[in-house]
């Protein structure tokens, strides 16, 4: 195997549709991408697709056993676990603990399927039972603060037919009581998401969710076999990207203040790594101070599985863009119907490609709208003051497109057009990146490199930075 330098490192991501993998050579000078493959995910037994990917990456025939392959490379892997861990978030006040619960769930690589504030009603509980989440993130009250709602909700959860584990990250003063009430449940107690008003503490809850994810994800479908054989735990795919986005600026300060967008078939993920609020005399922050590294995931925005809901959510934006492009609304409606029925459909001809592009633009428009905060102008007797809610992305210098679609985009148009349109959104001034360059994750490596972050943070960051390509800002829109 002289073809391989000092060490061979493999990273595999088991997605819901494709199992993607890459093999890297690790030398003193860093990581080098050697090959990249994708095979269809084998849903009934994930090991089959994993095995094939690994064999192909290592240039072995498919009869070589996993044991044998194992000795040829150091293997890391992630799994999207059917599109991410499904989390139900329970908080007290919508703008405070519930908002933090949602942020914690999303930055742990989960998908918030439903959120609840104040008291759970009996129909809320029924809905929860029907949704059957993987985890319930249960919060409410500052430490020593409100306990009424949390205790009430604990009783309701205890008497429900839910079976998933509950992560309790609420008022510390009643944590023991909550555990006692929910005797028949698996309750994992962690630090309060908001120990004091305005104090954000989502890391401990994130860590607990990640631990549960690992335990859950390996059950069934053969993953346990892989874990045992390779002695490594899988990462949730979105968490892998989150960790990469967190790590890059540590090694490359010139890449501080960055954002990444990943549009998939089912979801759109938006990541940002920049200070969320700069305190000045003329800007007052309202609500919580959001974390520096933030991920939001939008379950209703996606290019295939979620195309129909995207088409609904994105009406305003799409109507506007169709007019500009001189395209018919009903033609697009028909296209959306076609791709929703057949999710592996590839667009044919310029018009359909344009439709696909418009859908991607709409994903970015609405994902950015929800991720990025804003300013409202307020006139006070002391002069003009801005009230900020949410996160300030003005200083973001680089926006990287990843995922199957954006990795293939050769111009910045798909990202640039919707972000520019957001500048005139309502009365609020959106805190959009002011002078950002656009890049693409040329080999669609971000999630695979994210798997290596724990062991090879510098090397993975270096390759990530080297493999992005700067896009033409003006963008030939008619291309």
């Amino acid at each position, binding site marked *: 195997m002289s073809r391989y330098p000092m060490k061979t490192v493999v990273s595999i991501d088991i997605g819901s549709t494709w199992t993607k993998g890459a093999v890297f050579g690790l030398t003193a000078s860093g990581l080098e991408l050697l090959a990249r493959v994708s095979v269809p995910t084998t849903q009934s037994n994930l090991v089959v697709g994993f095995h094939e990917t690994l064999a192909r990456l290592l240039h072995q025939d498919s009869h070589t056993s996993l044991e044998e392959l194992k000795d040829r490379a150091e293997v890391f892997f992630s799994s999207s676990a059917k599109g991410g861990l499904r989390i139900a978030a329970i908080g007290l006040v919508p703008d405070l*603990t519930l908002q933090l619960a949602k942020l914690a769930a999303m930055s742990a690589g989960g998908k918030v399927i439903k959120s609840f504030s104040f008291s759970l009603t009996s129909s809320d509980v029924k809905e929860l039972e029907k949704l059957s989440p993987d985890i319930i993130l249960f919060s409410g*009250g500052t430490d*020593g*603060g409100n306990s*009424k709602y949390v205790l009430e909700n604990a009783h309701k959860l205890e008497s429900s037919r839910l079976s998933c584990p509950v992560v309790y990250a609420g008022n510390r003063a009643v944590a023991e009581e909550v555990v006692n009430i929910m005797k028949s449940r698996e309750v994992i107690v962690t630090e309060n998401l908001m120990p004091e*008003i305005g104090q954000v503490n989502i890391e401990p809850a994130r860590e607990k969710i990640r631990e549960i994810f690992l335990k859950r994800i390996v059950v069934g479908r053969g993953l346990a076999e892989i874990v045992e054989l390779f002695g490594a735990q899988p990462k949730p795919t979105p968490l892998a990207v989150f960790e990469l986005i967190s790590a890059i600026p540590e090694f490359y300060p010139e890449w501080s203040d960055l954002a990444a967008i990943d549009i998939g078939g089912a979801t759109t993920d938006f990541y940002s790594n920049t200070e969320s609020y700069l305190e000045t005399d003329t800007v007052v922050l309202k609500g919580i101070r959001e974390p520096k590294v933030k991920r939001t995931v939008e379950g209703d925005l996606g290019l295939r599985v979620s195309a129909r809901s995207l088409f609904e959510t994105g009406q305003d934006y799409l109507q506007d863009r169709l007019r500009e492009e001189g395209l018919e609304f009903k033609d697009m409606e028909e296209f959306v119907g076609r791709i929703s029925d057949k999710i592996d459909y590839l667009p044919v001809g310029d018009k359909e490609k344009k439709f696909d592009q418009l859908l991607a633009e709409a994903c970015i428009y609405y994902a950015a709208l929800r991720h990025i905060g804003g300013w409202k102008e*307020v006139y*006070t007797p*002391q002069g003009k*003051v801005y009230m900020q809610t949410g996160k300030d992305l003005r200083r973001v210098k680089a926006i990287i497109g990843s995922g199957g679609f954006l990795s293939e985009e050769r111009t910045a148009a798909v990202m640039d057009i919707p972000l520019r349109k957001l500048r005139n959104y309502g009365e609020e001034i959106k805190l959009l990146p002011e002078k950002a360059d656009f890049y693409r994750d040329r080999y669609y490596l971000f999630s695979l490199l994210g798997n290596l972050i724990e062991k090879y943070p510098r090397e993975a960051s270096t390759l990530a930075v080297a493999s992005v390509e700067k896009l033409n800002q003006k963008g030939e829109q008619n291309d």
Partner: protein
Amino acid sequence: MENQKDTIVIGVIGSDCHSVGNKILEMFFTSEGFKVVNLGVMVSQQEFVDAAIETNARAILVSSLYGHAEIDCQGFRELCIEKGLDPIILYIGGNLAVGKTPFSVVEEKFKKMGFDRVFPPDIDLKQVAELLRQDIKEKFGSCSKGQEARDRANQAGLENQSQAANQIGQGDKNDRKEPEGSTAE
């Protein structure tokens, strides 16, 4: 025993950004043995109420210095009731009206709006703290533990402090006449 302190929420309501007095109130009430949640300046009714719910606060102390309190506080008590904060104690203090309206008129107006106590800008803060302790005891049957003992021990000290705070409170009034450069653009 951190948990036994009574929590109060303070802040300056509306589009008012007088921040000096607000910080003094935080220091003062903290030294009086309360757990103070300070929301700072330009606080909306909703924010006061949200913070009071999460922290299980006994009282909300609203400040206003710029003369628009009446408009800003419209429906405050109703919002509290709507959100299930029925027994919460509401205080308001500061320059609550523009011009030379007699204080008794102002007081009546705000009491009608559902505020339990209304204070002029030159009130002795020590007195406010006493009233607050009484009101909390009456409504919730508790008061800041250990406070009386501490009061006795620090009597002289507290006296000075409240006087000082009062003087600075007067200083805050001057802010109104000369808008603070720091909060204006």
